[in-house]
């Protein structure tokens, strides 16, 4: 169920509600001193329009590949121990978690920085889309374009 990689990280797309506890337990280890988590959940409005619910879809194979790339970048850039990144797809109600990230590290600064980098990069580069449903219709959320270097075939983050 849990795909284990070289760093023993977790990257998952799920359709059921996200339970953060197993993710936190997974990244936590005796040699660590800090875990920073990010819980992204469904807001009740968008541009001051009350939202009914959201529907997320993904290019799943590519999204997982991009999530793993983010994990690899985190280990290159920061002194962290383990990462868990999970994103939910399908219909989500107000207040439900859409994305959850947990990063463990020996010291807090790296965990904070890596967690921030992970969510910011996910929102720019992972092919996931949300449709926002309102009383009077539905729209695809304005999204973000991947930065130019990532949009070029073969481009890899500096290593």
């Amino acid at each position, binding site marked *: 169920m849990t795909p284990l990689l070289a760093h023993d990280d977790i990257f998952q797309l799920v359709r059921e509600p996200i339970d953060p506890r197993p993710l936190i337990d997974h990244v936590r280890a005796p040699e660590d001193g800090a875990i920073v988590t990010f819980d*992204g959940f469904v807001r009740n409005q968008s541009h001051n329009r009350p939202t009914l619910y959201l529907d*997320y*879809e*993904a*290019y799943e*194979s*590519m*999204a997982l*590949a991009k999530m793993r790339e983010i994990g690899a970048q985190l280990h290159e850039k920061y002194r962290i121990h383990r990462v868990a990144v999970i*994103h939910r797809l399908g219909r989500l109600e107000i207040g439900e978690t*859409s*994305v959850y990230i947990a990063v463990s590290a020996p010291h807090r600064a790296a965990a904070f920085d890596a967690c921030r980098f992970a*969510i910011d990069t*996910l*929102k*720019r*580069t*992972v*092919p*996931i*889309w*949300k*449709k926002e449903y309102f009383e009077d219709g539905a729209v*695809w*959320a*304005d*999204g*973000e*374009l*991947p930065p130019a270097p*990532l*949009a*070029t*075939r*073969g*481009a890899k983050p500096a290593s």
Partner: protein
Amino acid sequence: MPPVAQTVRVKVLFFGRLKDVVGQAEESLDLTDAFTIEQLFALYSGRIPELAKYRSSVVASRNQEFASWGTQLHSGDEVAFLPPVSGG
């Protein structure tokens, strides 16, 4: 090699609003020549004129990796047209 046109079979995927515009999520296409991603998008824009207005905001991928518009397609490739992403 004889100078015959080769058939290139590609799988094409559309996501988000592009899927709504095109009216389908995926299609397998036999192309008769060495197409670039740009030409493939133009092929669909010819069929569905509304698609053309999304060209500047679309990013393409080939085999699950972001690809430039000039990328040439090969048989078995999976090409996806991706509107601006909005996960998280």
